[in-house]
């Protein structure tokens, strides 16, 4: 009976998307539909979590076809945990975007396509997490990717088209590689059902299995932005609107990580490829965070830390041990919430300071103490300062690395610590320059006077509103290297955003934007409090992954292993 709930996290958002599209004329109706649909989905997911935790994996054959022909939806502990975190996060981001929509477009938003696309994105993510066969996983990927193409190029401005070109091309390549791999898997085994594949792939000659594994791995690694294949991410994410970037950063790369976890545990449990994965994890961690250190725009800093922290998850997967896998799953849950929170806060900074460029920001802690707190807590959490969940997740990974005992694992432990320190450095830089120090360009509007359209909808008052004392003090300091008008044009400055009528935040929309960010900060901090039970849960999830027999039996039925 409870299995009837399984397709709902996919079907409900899709249904809601259709409804919202039909109601395109009424922004209010769209909002209600999106909120109700996502709220219901979250509740259903919570029920699924409780059910799966007590009763074990659930499976459903859509349409009643046998498992090897039809589509199976499967929920085990890993799936439902990912599902719960992703729906909660997408609900928060939705509320945030409602608040931002009220500011950016007025109450009557012309972008009637936003809500349907957003719901389709959620449906795609849920489908990927619940899918029990490779081809349905591909379909889930495509649903969420196509929705993400639309969201990334929302409004069709120059910067977004430029970013979208790269993003769409790279995503298409990864999808094609994935699809070709599915064709070859089918040719080799005659099935695409993951539960069946686990047994049949093991019977293949090693070389054939390795080729299939590598093809799938490359396809997933592009989506997850693992190092040599990560260059597209910091290039494309920062241009999108803040809520879109937030939900992308939280969810899309993690779907890739989820797929890699399934690949390494269910499909190819005997071929861990530890060496390869550990090296890529190391490079992802270090090179990603070095990119973050070099940037001067908050959104870009965050995009690079996102790449860097993907490395931690790959590290956990590469270890292959139960502890490593459990920590990796914990880290995914932690990182979804934390990265989304930080991007939402970056959106708030953009709204309040008029820019996300560190060259233009300053003294935000004085002007907006609440915002400073909202940034500081997740930033420290991301860097892994005790007692936050980031620390606990990293600790788990490092312990698993030490337990592994190989020299490469020790190298990765060291690399993880270094990446964590450099993350702290990047976050401290953002904190100092945006929240602590006086703004760089005081007294002169940083907008390019040539073209008023592309300049930020920033109140001059907001920037010059920083006390005149700042002017005096910077004059005393003998002139720091300032950014002259039109000199260092960061990408965010070049946005041509829809101009708000006035810059004054209405109380309601400010609440609608701040509240979700605050809720996510509280949630991510709460992950620390519930870390014990959560680690218990991920331990069991990792045990399930290492012993997939219950998964296989649930999908294929008792005594029907082949």
């Amino acid at each position, binding site marked *: 009976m409870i299995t009837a709930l399984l397709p709902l996290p996919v079907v409900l958002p899709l249904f809601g998307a259709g409804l919202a599209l039909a109601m395109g004329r009424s922004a209010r109706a769209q909002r209600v539909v999106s909120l109700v649909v996502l709220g219901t989905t979250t509740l259903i997911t919570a029920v699924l979590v409780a059910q799966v935790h007590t009763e074990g994996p659930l499976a459903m054959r859509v349409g009643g076809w046998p498992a090897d022909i039809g589509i199976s939806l499967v929920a085990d502990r890993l799936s439902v945990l990912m599902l719960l975190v992703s729906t909660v996060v997408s609900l928060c981001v939705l509320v945030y975007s409602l608040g931002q929509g009220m500011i950016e477009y007025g109450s009557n938003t012309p972008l009637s396509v936003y809500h349907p696309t957003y719901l389709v994105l959620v449906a795609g993510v849920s489908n990927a997490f619940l899918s029990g066969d490779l*081809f349905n996983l591909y379909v889930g990927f495509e649903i969420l990717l196509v929705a993400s193409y639309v969201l990334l190029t929302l409004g069709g401005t120059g910067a977004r088209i430029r970013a979208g070109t790269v993003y769409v091309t790279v995503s298409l390549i990864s999808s094609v590689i994935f699809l070709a791999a599915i064709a070859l898997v089918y040719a080799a085994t005659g099935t695409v059902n993951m539960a069946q594949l686990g047994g049949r792939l093991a019977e293949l000659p090693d070389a054939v299995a390795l080729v299939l594994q590598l093809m799938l791995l490359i396809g997933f690694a592009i989506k997850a932005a693992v190092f040599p294949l990560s260059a597209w991410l910091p290039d494309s994410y920062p241009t999108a609107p803040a809520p879109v970037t937030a939900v992308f950063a939280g969810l899309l790369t993690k779907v890739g990580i989820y797929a890699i976890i399934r690949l390494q545990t269910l499909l190819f449990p005997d071929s861990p490829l530890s060496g390869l994965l550990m090296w890529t994890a190391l490079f992802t961690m270090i090179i990603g965070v070095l990119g973050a250190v070099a940037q001067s*725009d908050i959104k870009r800093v965050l995009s690079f830390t996102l790449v860097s922290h993907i490395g931690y998850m790959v590290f956990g997967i590469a270890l292959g041990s139960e502890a490593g896998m459990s920590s990796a799953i914990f880290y995914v849950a932690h990182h979804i919430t934390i990265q989304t929170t930080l991007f939402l806060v970056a959106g708030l900074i953009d709204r309040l300071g008029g820019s996300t460029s*560190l*060259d233009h920001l300053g003294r935000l802690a004085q002007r907006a103490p609440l915002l400073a707190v909202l940034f500081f807590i997740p930033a420290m959490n991301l860097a892994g300062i005790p007692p936050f969940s980031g620390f606990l997740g990293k600790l788990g990974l490092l312990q698993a690395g030490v337990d592994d005992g190989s020299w490469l694992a020790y190298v990765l432990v060291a690399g993880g610590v270094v990446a964590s320190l450099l993350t702290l450095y990047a976050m401290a830089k953002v904190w100092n320059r945006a929240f602590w120090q006086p703004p760089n360009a005081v007294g002169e509007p940083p907008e390019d006077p040539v073209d008023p359209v592309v300049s930020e909808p920033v109140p001059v008052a907001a920037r010059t509103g920083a006390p005149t004392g700042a002017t005096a003090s910077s004059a005393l300091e003998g*002139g720091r290297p300032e950014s002259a008008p039109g000199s260092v044009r960061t990408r965010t400055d070049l946005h041509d955003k829809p101009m708000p009528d006035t810059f004054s935040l209405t109380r309601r929309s400010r609440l609608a934007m701040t509240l979700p960010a605050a809720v996510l900060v509280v949630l991510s901090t709460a992950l620390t409090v519930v870390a014990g039970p959560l680690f218990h849960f991920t331990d069991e999830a990792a045990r399930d992954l290492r012993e997939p027999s219950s998964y296989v039996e649930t999908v294929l039925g008792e005594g029907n292993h082949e």
Partner: protein
Amino acid sequence: MTDMSVNILLTVVVGALFASGVYLVLERSLTRILVGVLLISNGVNVLFLVASGPAGRSPLLGRNAPEDISDPLPQALVLTAIVITLGVSAFMLAMAYRSWQLNRHDDAQDDVEDALIRRRAERDEASASYDDSAGGTLDEEGSDTSDNGEDSADTGALTGNGPDSLRKGI
């Protein structure tokens, strides 16, 4: 259905489609990338046909004996893939057209910020975000500004735009 022979002609076709597709994807123009992606997608579709084994009768139960029919599952998968490719191609065409509207070309452009950082690295110069409160005299500041002027011009040349059109376009 235990015939393991593979249709060599189809395999060669897959290879040719992939090769020409990859060549086109490496181009800068989005339209050519799209054509390349379409070729590769069709290559994958043919690959599915290869994967489905030897050709047989149409998979209609009741009309043909189950031993004679070809494997219907890859055909279902290919149909899904074709629909997805159709949707994505429509979106890419719209994007290429929008890019042409804005920039009069549909080239994939370099990241503006990356280009700036690369140029700074070539000249071994600290970025404006580098907080050097000890140094930084007025003279240095002046020279910094003129360098930055060059920067945006360089980036413009790089992306095939004048600095002004770059600023307007982005």
